[in-house]
Structure formats: C-alpha cells, structure tokens
C-alpha cells in the first residue's frame, strides 16, 4: 500500500504475506520505518486518509477484510478483531467513565441490559488484575495510573471476546517492572481465552517472551518468518542477524562497543532496485542490488526468508543460517580505557529537591500535600574518567537529580562539590565559569535544540555566551569532525535533522568548551536498537580521547550495563543501591534492583520467566509508604521493613564495597 505525501507516493508496504496461526501468538518485529504498525492499521482499515491499499488480500476467518464495505467492517472491528494500543495515556477518552466506554463497546449486544453489560465489564476488569473493579469502573481514565490504564485498555479489547487481538507496542510506554506484569498478563490471558494474538513491537525481549512465531519486517517488506526459536537461535536474514547482534540484552559480555547497522533506512519515495536491505548489508553482492530476492525456505521448517544468499538457486556466495546463541558467559570486562583516577571529580552529598505542587490555600482547604519531594538525601560521587549510571523508573527522581547537580533546578538542601568547589549557593556569575566544565545532553534530541538556530550557531553558542575569543568557523568545523557530522549539516535547522543526527549535535554542543563532566539524560531514548550504538560508541571514544567523565541517566538497563562502570539505583527519589555496575548486575543486593534486573525481557525464548518479579505500581510521590518505601512491593518484606526506614549502609560483596539501603540485603556482609 502507499501513502500520498506532498513529495510523492510513499510505498510503505510491498508484498506482505503474513499468516497468523490460530491460537498462537505472532510477533511482528521491526524498527522505525519498517511498516509494522501500518500493516495493522491496514488490516483494520483505519488508515489515514492519504493512504491507499493498492492490492492484496487480508483473509480473516474466511472473509477478505479488504473487500468488505464500511458497514461490514464495522461489525468486524471490536467483535472479531480488537486492539490494544501503545500509549494508554492518550488512547482513552478522558471525559467519559470506563463504565460508559465499556458499555458503548458492547452496544451491539442489544439483548443485554445495562446492568449485565456492567457486570461483564467488571468481570473482565477483574481478570486483567484491576483491584476493586466495581468501584473503579465508575472512575475516569485520569484516575488510573499508567499501568492500570493499560490494563483497562486490554480489558476493553477483550470485552467482546474477539477472535484476534492485535497489540501495538503494548509495553513501550511502560516502565520495566510494569512491562513484566503486562507480559505475564498477556500470557495468562492467552492460556485462559485461547486467544490468537498478534504483537507488534521493536522490543526483541518482549517478542521472545511472548510469541510463538515471529515475522521480521524491514522498510516495508517481510524479510523473515519463522518460529521464535528459529529466529532467535538461527536467524537467517542478514538484517535479522545484525539486529540480534545489536541488542545489548543479548550479550552479557561488556565490550564497551555496541554493534550498529550502518546507514539509514532507504527513502520509500524512490525504491531501490534489488534487495531493500542491500545498501546496509555486509554480505551484499552485485546481484543483491539489481534483482529483488524472493522468499526461500530455510531447512524444512516453516522458516522462510527473503534473501538471495540463502536461495539454493542463487549463484554466488551462500550463507547458511548463522547459529547465534545469546551469550550467557559470565561478565568479563574487555575495554581498553585508561583506568580512571581515584580523585573524586564530583561529589554529591545528601541532596534534596522539593517541588511545590499546591498553594497553601489549596492544600489547607482540600487537604492536599503542599510539597512533593523529588529527590531525598542523594549521595554519590563521580571519579574522573569513569561512567556512572543513574538508573530508575518513572518517578525515581533521576532526571531531577541530574538537573539539580547542574543547578538547573533549585535544590532544597545538601551539597554538590565539583573539583573541590561547592556549587550550591554560588551566584550566577560564579556558576558561569563552571558551566564550561559541566555540560548536559538532553533526552529529546530535536526538542533540546532551539528551533530557529542553525546547527552552526547552536554548536558555537557556548563560545558566544562565555565571550570566548575564538574563530567560530574553526571551532564549528572541529566539533563537527569530532562527532562525525558532515560539514554540510552546519547550515541545517533542527527540524531538518533526524533523531540520531540531532543527538550528535547535542554531543557537539556539550563538548564545545572541553568540559570534564557530561551528564547525559537518556542518550538512547527514541533510537532504534540498530542505531543506538552509534551514539554510545561515539561517547565511549570521546571519553577515551578526552578523559571525560559521564553521568548517564537511563531506564534502559541493558544499555547501561554495557556502558557504565558504577551504578546508582533510585526509587522514589532515594538511592537504594550504589556500587560497581558489573557486580550489581550479577548479584543485586537490594530487592528492587533484583526486580529490575530480572524484569528486563530477555531476547531468549528459552529463558522465559514464569514468575513476575514484582507486583503493584510505583506509589505516588505525594503519599509515600512508611518505613522502607519499597516494602509495599517487596516480596521479602517483613515487619521491620514497614516501620523503620533503612539508611545507606556499606556492605561487601566479593570483596568489593557497595552501598545499599535495605534491612536485609540479598547478598554480601556488612562491613562493620
């Protein structure tokens, strides 16, 4: 099918053949631009108005969906095919109660009374794990937290007992611990309802945990299809192989270098002749670029791949399905980085950040909290030349802490010492000097660049702000060179850059004045797995050549594992564990850390977890639990945990020091 855009026709999907076996879960894997979401919307006939299906068929339960008229399609949707959406915060109408929404969905069941419809809805809400559904059904969506909203979304999808459930990135917008819960929920539901499910995602771990069969899409084509073990253990198509290699969760050896797939997704306005992946494929030969490959069978299973190199009739180099098992060997540090000095470049002690949320009038009258503590008693240190990872889920306060260190957010108390100098309480002028030594990279690559400034003026702005006499052209060129950005890009505006390119600009800008510390907020957010290595490798290189120290804030554990030397885990604004990164990953001491580490979906079908690592959701910052704030979700919690709050104590694990805030750490012995 195609989209009509101002620049011409966009050939979004070509020759897609997908079979969804009944009673099984099919995964559709692809990165941005692969067309995976478009396929779903096409099946459901809910494409945007400038999209048109040129040819093809979608046979469902005997009918061709593409041939139905609008009215017939209407009865298919909801009844027979139902959907779960990516972002629960925007996918549910805010002005109607769930009761109303669910009753509306059942409108075709005219034989049921209102009460019966409500009861059915309550039953399903109970099944998806929403507590007190009789009361909660009368609430509005904004009363539900993110995880609950997604559960409600799943409930709404299941309400009419559909034959096929399609899930579009069902966990992308959720935290790791919630993701694990939803995965578990889907597994249970499949067992109970014997449902046929189609899951679309870019997250290999999710796919491996849930699916029986997998389809891999690239730039609008299906490039490989097979059972989940075929794909994860014997990927045949070069793209699939490369994708597997790039996923940081697949390798547990820390190399400090992440593989990437070089190049960009081709422009779908003008399709290349030949194989769509040829321009980026490391095995490509001449024939690959001229003739389009056809679907070939691999061995005798259902495993099919679209590649010349596996075609027995093809002349030229042949490729066999590479045996690619995930690397489970113990962690070894393989990095050629100068050993970092012992000096503490940055020392944060007992930093607290408090935000005012309600005026005193409102809090007095409506009994609402006046303040919210985003960060409490945070202490950490950064040595020169090392990378410290700051990890937490939403609400953990990690971004706030990063900003508070840089003085972008006012801290309530505590101290931040940089290179021997106390930062808190410095006047603006005093801080100005330090802004040259500490720089920040922001999460939203394009959004953090001023929209009407060219790249050149953005990169050289630090020089202008600090009134440094320098040849700006020269500096701009030098910085471009450093981040491997073509000189051509200097004249571009931020909206003319891709996400990866904009991140490089962010790096360049941060590097402009030769800082010693860079605080990077979610450096890989929004990047495809196959390209996130680019920015990380660049950062790694720069660290080696310039002796930089990094504080990397992220919720992406596999990535952090690869890049950080030491780690600090945050929960509800406090640090709960702090120590060497490898040690923490292999032997977590705090139950929350354990839940996080175990909660990451593994891209390995043989390591599916049957138990959920953690229940419940993150409590609201406004109503903190008593005692140890994690006790409400901790499976090891006992009475002392409910009463007394543990402070950060030193323990020794494998002769290395670690700090943990728990009454009963899982490993190690106290160092007293």
């Amino acid at each position, binding site marked *: 099918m195609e989209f009509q855009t101002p620049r011409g026709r966009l050939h979004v999907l070509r020759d897609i053949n997908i079979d969804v076996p009944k009673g099984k879960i099919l995964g559709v894997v692809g990165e941005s631009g692969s067309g995976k979401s478009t396929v779903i919307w096409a099946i*459901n006939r*809910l494409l945007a108005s400038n999209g048109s299906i040129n040819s093809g068929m979608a046979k469902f339960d005997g009918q061709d969906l593409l041939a139905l008229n609008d009215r017939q399609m*209407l*009865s*298919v*949707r*909801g*009844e027979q095919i*139902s*959907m779960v*959406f990516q*972002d629960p915060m*925007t*996918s*549910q*109408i*805010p*002005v*109607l109660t769930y009761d109303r929404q669910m009753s*509306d*969905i059942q*409108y*075709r069941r005219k034989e049921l009374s209102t009460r019966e419809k409500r009861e059915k809805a309550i039953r399903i809400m109970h099944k998806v794990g929403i507590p007190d559904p009789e009361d909660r059904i009368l609430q*509005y969506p*904004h009363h539900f937290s993110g995880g609950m909203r997604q559960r409600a*979304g799943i409930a*709404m*999808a299941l309400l*009419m007992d559909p034959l096929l459930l399609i899930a579009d990135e069902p966990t992308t917008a959720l935290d790791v611990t919630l993701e694990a819960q939803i995965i578990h929920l889907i597994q249970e539901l499949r067992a109970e309802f014997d449902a046929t499910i189609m899951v679309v995602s870019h997250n290999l771990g999710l796919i491996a945990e849930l699916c029986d069969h997998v389809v891999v899409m690239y730039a609008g084509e299906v490039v490989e299809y097979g059972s989940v073990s075929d794909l994860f253990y014997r990927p045949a198509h070069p793209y699939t192989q490369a994708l597997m290699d790039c996923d940081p969760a697949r390798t547990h050896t820390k190399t400090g270098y992440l593989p990437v797939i070089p190049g960009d997704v081709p422009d779908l306005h003008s399709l290349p002749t030949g194989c769509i992946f040829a321009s980026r494929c490391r095995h490509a030969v001449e024939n690959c670029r001229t003739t389009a490959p056809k679907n070939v069978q691999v061995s005798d299973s259902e495993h099919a791949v679209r590649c010349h190199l596996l075609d027995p009739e093809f002349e030229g180099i042949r490729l066999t399905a590479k045996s690619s098992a995930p690397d489970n060997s113990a962690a070894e540090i393989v990095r050629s980085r100068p050993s970092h000095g012992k000096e503490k470049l940055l020392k944060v002690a007992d930093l607290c950040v408090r935000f005012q949320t309600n005026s005193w*009038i*409102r809090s007095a*009258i*409506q009994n609402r909290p006046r303040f919210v503590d985003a960060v409490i008693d945070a202490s950490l240190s950064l040595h020169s030349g090392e990378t410290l990872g700051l990890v937490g889920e939403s609400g953990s306060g990690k971004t706030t802490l990063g900003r508070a260190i840089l003085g972008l957010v006012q801290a309530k108390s505590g101290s931040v010492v940089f290179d021997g100098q106390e930062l808190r309480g410095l006047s603006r002028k005093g801080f100005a000097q330090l802004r040259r030594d500490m720089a920040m990279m922001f999460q939203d690559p394009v959004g953090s660049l001023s929209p009407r400034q060219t790249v050149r003026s953005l990169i050289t702005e630090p020089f202008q702000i600090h009134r440094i006499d320098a040849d700006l052209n020269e500096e701009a060129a030098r910085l471009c060179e450093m981040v491997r950005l073509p000189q051509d890009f200097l004249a571009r505006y931020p909206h003319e850059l891709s996400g990866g390119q904009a991140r490089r600009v962010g790096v360049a800008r941060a590097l402009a004045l030769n800082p010693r510390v860079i605080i990077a907020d979610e450096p890989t957010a929004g990047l495809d797995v196959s390209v996130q290595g680019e920015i990380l490798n660049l950062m790694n290189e720069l660290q080696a050549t310039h002796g930089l120290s990094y504080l990397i804030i992220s919720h992406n554990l596999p990535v952090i594992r690869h890049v950080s030397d030491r780690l600090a885990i945050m929960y509800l604004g406090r640090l709960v564990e702090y120590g060497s990164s490898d040690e923490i990953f292999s032997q977590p001491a705090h139950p929350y850390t354990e839940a996080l580490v175990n909660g990451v979906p593994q891209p390995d079908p043989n390591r599916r977890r049957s138990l959920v690592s953690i229940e419940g959701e993150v409590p609201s910052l406004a109503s903190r639990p008593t005692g140890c704030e994690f006790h409400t979700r901790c499976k090891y919690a006992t009475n002392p945990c409910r009463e007394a709050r543990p402070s950060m104590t030193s323990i020794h694990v494998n002769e290395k020091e670690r700090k943990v805030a728990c009454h009963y750490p899982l490993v190690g012995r106290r160092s007293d």
Partner: protein
Amino acid sequence: MLLYIIRRLALSGAIVFLAVLVLFLMLHSIPGDPASIALGPRATLEVQAAYRAKMHLDEPLYYQFAIFVGSVFQGDLGSDVFSNRSVALTLSEQLPHTISLAIAAIGWSALLGIPLGCLSAIRPNSLLDRVTGIFAVGTIAVPSFLVSIWAILIFSIALGWFPVLGAGDEDDIIDRLYHLVLPAFAVGLGWVGYLARMVRATMLEVMNENYIRSARAFGLSPQTVVFRYALNVAILPTITLIGVGFGGLLSGTVFAEIIFSRPGVGKIIYDMVLARNFPVVQGAVLVTIAMYVFVTLIADLLVAWFDPRVRETL
C-alpha cells in the same frame, strides 16, 4: 471545584473593579475641569456647580472613587444630569431590549453554526464542507454594521418585508418579534461563520486524537464516535470561544441598536454621549462591562463543570 468558583468570582470582581477604575481615571485624567468636560460647553454655571457638588469633585480623588464604588454597591449609579432620574432605573428599562437582541442573535447563529461546523468536520473537503467554508468566511468578512445597513437596504427599503426602526409595540409580542428579526439577523450573521469555523477546527483536531482512533478500532459506530466521543470533548473549547467572542457580539449589538434605532443599552450610550450626559454613559458602560464579565465567568464555570479532569483537580 468550590475553590475554583471562588477564585473565578474574585477574578471577575477584580476585572470589573479595574475597569471601573479605568473609567474613573479617564474622566479625571483629562486636563481641565471635570464638570465642564462631562457636561459640555452648554451647561450653565449652576448646572456645573450642582454637578460638582453631587459628584464631590472638590474632594480628593480616592475619596471620590470610594464614594462611587460605595454607591455602585448600593445600586445607585448616579442620576441623569438633566432629568435627575436615577441612572439605574433608566438602564433597567433599556437592558431587557439589549439582552433579548443578544440572545436572539446567539440563539440563531449557534443553532445554525454549530451543526454546520460539525458536519463540515465529519466530511472534510466534501462539497458541504467547501460551501460552508466559503459561506463562513463570507459572513465573517462583512462587518455587522454593514450587514445591518445592507439588510435595511435590501429587506426593508427594497423589499419592504421588515420594519426599519424601533423595537415594536410594547404589548404586542408578535410585533416585537417582527422588529427583532432584522437586527438579530445582522448581529448574528457574522457569528454563524465564526462558530462554524471554530467548531470545525476543534472537531478536526479532536478527531485526530488517539482516543478517537481507539473508539473506531473498538467498532463503535461513526455516529457514536462523532457525537458522543468527539463532540463531548470539542464542546469545551467551543464554550470558551463563545464566552470570549461575546465582547464582539456586544459591539455588534450596540451598532445594531444605533442603526435600527432600537432601545437598549447601546443606544442609550450613544444618545447620552451626544447629549453630554456623562453619568448615564458611565453607568451604561459599567453595565456592559458587567455583562461581558458575567458571560465569560459562566462560560469558564461551564467548562470546568463539564471537564471531569478540571472538575476534580480544581
């Protein structure tokens, strides 16, 4: 919610207060003697002296202002310079005419404009949409006073269908309605276009939201999706827009009253300005400001009530 109401009321009060202050200062900031300015060159010395005494013009400014505010609170808006009649009484006679005109204008324009906007949004770029679009812009393009004049030209003079002047016979409701048609048409015409376009734009924006897509995917019928899901959300900014646009409507009403010689607050202001009867002018201006502030207050409260997110967090 209660807190919001209180806050909003206080805000309205502050606005009215500030407007009154501005009015007051306007009078007193002009160089020269306030009495002769207000009354004009024709007023005799005795009239001026009487005026000066009544308005306490010899007292310090803040005292005068305080007295004025105090008397407003008591419902006393001063008295007519010439006839000594209570301004409040005069205005209370004129107000119903203005209100009936305003309601008639909003009524018919909303009845036509909002559905047109909805239908245009449901089928964008259809024939209906294009025609409505052109019609909408066309009606906005013609200022309301021009519509009034041209309407009189076409419907009263050329065709003789409707009367030109006045509000009609006091006791005859049909006659009054008859006299209301042309002015209400003139004042409301621009609003049809305004509302249609605003509703269309808001609806289109809402229809692009993710939750509408979800509703469709759940198999809800197009009518439900539009009328219960999209409209319920789109109605909120529309109410706000009506509130904001009310000021323009009031202007149009004033023009219509003057052109059609209809009794009403606007006509009174105009006549009294020409007659240099300042207390009446002052009182009438106060009333118009109060009307506008009141309407926007109601609009804001309605929106806060209908949006469950706002209703609870405020």
